[in-house]
């Protein structure tokens, strides 16, 4: 079997993986409605029933599912397309795409060459034994300063720099779940329009990240929208009045 022929039985779609891909690309099935986790589960079930792992099929599957995940995550975000491709008309975009694929192919070939080169070297081994200590002993008196100790201090400073340290001393390991953050977001959205900064004020990085996940989920469910005027600018959240099923199930 090839991964494309994996039979799926999902809420929104029944049939081969292959066809699902095509329908998604034709936008006849809304990717936002497809639970990709279920596709993965189907594949794992299939693997289990087969009792063996075909690496090539597994690789193909991972490539396909990763592409779907990327596409889906992009759809879930307010549309910020690849600027380069966006500025082009569809014909030019296809050319740009072709160029990228040719580039990828070029390096795949170079990779095959390197793999062969390494295989050809297989029979050669090098001696790794350290030379006897008496031959290595450096005459301390003969050595002079060549390095600046400031380099070490600067390196320490660099490692202290980023990102802003989290104070874990009183809180222990942060434990925060998407469910908690969903509840939190729903609660504050009931009060009206709110900024993301307010929604996560005082929270640590992990909580901010999980809150963003929760926000994606709300967006997917049609419960919330958000706007951001500039990259890294403030994000404004608003509840959506409409019922979740705005997008029809195919």
């Amino acid at each position: 079997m090839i991964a494309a022929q994996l039979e799926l039985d999902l809420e929104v779609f029944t049939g081969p993986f292959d066809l699902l891909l095509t329908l998604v690309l034709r936008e006849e099935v809304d990717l936002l409605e497809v639970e990709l986790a279920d596709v993965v589960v189907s594949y794992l079930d299939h693997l289990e029933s087969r009792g063996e792992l075909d690496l090539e099929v597994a690789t193909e599957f991972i490539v396909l599912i990763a592409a779907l995940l990327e596409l889906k995550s992009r759809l879930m975000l307010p549309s910020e397309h690849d600027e380069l491709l966006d500025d082009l008309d569809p014909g030019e975009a296809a050319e740009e795409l072709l160029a990228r694929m040719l580039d990828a192919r070029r390096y795949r070939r170079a990779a095959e060459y390197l793999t062969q080169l390494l295989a050809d070297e297989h029979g050669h081994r090098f001696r790794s034994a350290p030379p006897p200590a008496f031959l290595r002993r450096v005459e301390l008196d003969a050595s002079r300063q060549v390095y600046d100790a400031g380099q070490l201090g600067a390196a320490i400073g660099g490692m202290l720099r980023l990102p802003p340290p989290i104070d874990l001393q009183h809180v222990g390991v942060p434990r925060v779940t998407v469910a908690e953050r969903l509840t939190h977001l729903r609660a504050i959205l009931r009060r009206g329009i709110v900024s993301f900064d307010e929604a996560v004020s005082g929270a640590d990085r992990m909580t901010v990240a999980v809150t963003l996940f929760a926000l994606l989920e709300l967006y997917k469910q049609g419960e919330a929208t958000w706007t951001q005027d500039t990259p890294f600018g403030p994000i404004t959240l608003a509840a959506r009045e409409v019922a979740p099923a705005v997008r029809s199930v195919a």
Partner: protein
Amino acid sequence: MSPLAAIVEALLFLSSEPVPEADLAAAAEVETDELRAALAELEQAWAPGARGLVLRRLAGGWTLATSPEAEAAARRLLAKPRTPPLTPAQAETLAIVAYLQPVSRPEITRIRGVAADSAAGTLLERGLIDEAGRSPFGAVLLRTTPLFLKLFGLDSLGDLPDHGQWDPTPEEEGDLRERLTRAGEARLGGPAAPVQPGFEDEVAGFEPAAQSVADAAVLTPQPS
């Protein structure tokens, strides 16, 4: 064997890394010409097939290595397994670093179409690539190491074939273009699908167009 060749032989035996000619000459306190004569003598003595060792020019220096005939016995004697071969992802990442160095991870990701973090991590761990400072945008830049040259049997990066050699041929490009044109169509409706109009029209039908085209290509299984 000349006394100088004997000394150079001992120096190479003691060094775990390839030794540049200048270092050998300085250690033996001879001129480069004399050193080269001694190396030529050693190259004869350690010619491939003659003995259990061969003299090789790698990573900008000279080194002794075992000959392939001894590989099976060496494997039996040394319990420690050899390092595993590269996975395809590692080989691709390494090829990109080798040809484009210094290059950042995001750039590698852009070329490969998938993230290379785990592959790059393994290559770093194995010492085949290392960090070469940071790009103006703060991304760590990567480059290959002398160990890469040594293990791949190269004297310098200049020994890598011109990367134009890997350029797809016009026929392949045409073929790829055609495959791209058919993306999303051939499989629609199963094997009996009718041939659809041209790809450009197809693309124009996508909304949002350009990005979906990009994704469509990712979704098209490529021949390996």
